[in-house]
């Protein structure tokens, strides 16, 4: 069985683009299976260079076949993609009810905060945005734009979140350093005001200074106590 066909079957059935490393992991896992045959075992330690060569060969073959899809490598990951000229029918296929909605403003804001401040806990995000972010976090995690990346070294060891490769792809960024004004926004420490600040009349909100980022845990409790949800729908934590 040829390596390129195995790769093809994997990429054809995968729900997301696969990197050479991920493909290598699949070969290792298949070789480790109880019922692994000789072919599977022989591919246990397939080299990256072999994989890349086979993938490139495969891409050339599909290019030559000139069908309605091709094998593409985006951001180091391989994926079968449809040719753009079929978009009108694909749009009709997806229809409105299945199409993932455009990201909402709250989702974009939450994404921006996570992008600039990762790794960051959910409580810290809530601190900055001033609202409960459970629902919006779920949305962006389901869309694969954000993922748990570790745990904060504070009481309770809450998970920390960061952006994914899909996030970069979605916004056409090469890397996090590509984020606009990254230097500035990463480092902003909103200063603690010297004296209690009263809300300016006419202003809708407490000035953001008061939302200063701090220790997530301590503040989380405080802000929850201060901000009961009006609808009586407590956060599902």
């Amino acid at each position: 069985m040829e390596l390129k066909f195995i790769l093809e079957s994997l990429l054809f059935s995968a729900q997301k683009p696969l990197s050479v490393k991920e493909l290598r992991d699949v070969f290792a896992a298949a070789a480790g299976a109880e019922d692994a045959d000789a072919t599977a075992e022989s591919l246990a330690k397939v080299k990256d260079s072999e994989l890349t060569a086979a993938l490139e060969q495969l891409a050339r073959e599909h290019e030559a076949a000139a069908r309605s899809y091709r094998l593409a490598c985006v951001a180091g990951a391989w994926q079968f993609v449809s040719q753009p000229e079929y978009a009108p029918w694909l749009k009709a296929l997806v229809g409105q009810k299945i199409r993932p909605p455009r990201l909402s403003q709250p989702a974009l804001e939450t994404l921006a905060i996570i992008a600039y401040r990762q790794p960051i806990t959910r409580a810290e995000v809530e601190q900055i945005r001033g609202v409960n972010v459970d629902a919006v976090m779920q949305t962006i995690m389901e869309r694969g734009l954000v993922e748990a990346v570790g745990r904060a070294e504070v009481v309770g060891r809450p998970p920390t979140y960061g952006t994914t490769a899909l996030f970069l792809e979605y916004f056409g960024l090469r890397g996090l350093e590509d984020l606009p004004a990254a230097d500035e926004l990463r480092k902003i420490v909103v200063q603690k005001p010297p004296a209690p600040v009263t809300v300016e009349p006419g202003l809708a909100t407490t000035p953001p200074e008061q939302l200063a980022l701090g220790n997530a845990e301590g503040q989380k409790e405080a802000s929850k106590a201060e901000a009961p949800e009006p609808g009586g729908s407590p956060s599902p934590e």
Partner: protein
Amino acid sequence: MAEYKVQFEVFEGPLDLLLYLIKKEEVDIYQVNLTRLATQFIEYIDLMRQFDLELAGEFLVMASTLMYIKSRELLPVDQQVAVEGEEEGEDPRWELIRQLVEYKKFKDAATQLQTLEARQENVFPRLPGKLEFESTAPPPKPDVSIFDLLNAVNSVLRRFEKRDGSREIFEDKWTVSEKIEFILKVIAERGSVRFAELFESAASRSEVVCTFLALLELIRLKQLVCVQPEAFAEIEIRRAETSAPAAGTPVSDPARNEIAAQQVVSQTAETGTPSDSARPS
């Protein structure tokens, strides 16, 4: 004893057992010797009884049919009793063979289904990721995303990069709340303002950043909206049409803004120690 039990249990019925016996004889169903088959069948039944195996009624029915066939054969044709209702041609031997042939075909068909079943376990459907048309073919954007804003502020900051020779240490000269006031004032006076205009008077990077954060905050509260008449055009900032001028309780997204508003109130009430629990990060 246990091995006999295993053997008997694989027969799905008397027909199955008969087929097994025929196979052992290595003859075609049509050419099988029914007398011998009857004898072997009954031997098996006896064996099953000896081992106290549960014997389905169907096996006994088949045994009696076979006994009947065998007994008929032992009599000369002219002495055979004509069975009532049995027309000529409805030979019980023939009936049994017909049944065996039919059953055999379905048994083979079942084997083929089993092959298909096993094959299907190894067939994986292509399950592509969901289509995202936003990223492949971006439609014209009437609204501006936060990333457009960040891009914009980035270009403003670049101007300061050229100007600022020395890197300045963060100072507390500008506050976001001041900038919120500033932006609201400008909008109140002029109705709308170009994005770049807001930064024209800025003297330092930190001031740009404060102005930008103020802008984000006002957008978050739906006080202001950003619009971009066409792709790559200048971003324009306007008062959100749905927002109540000063109350800060816009109606477009009641649930969310209510949360924000409520928080303002409760935090205001506790301004005595709003940030005591917050340690600088």
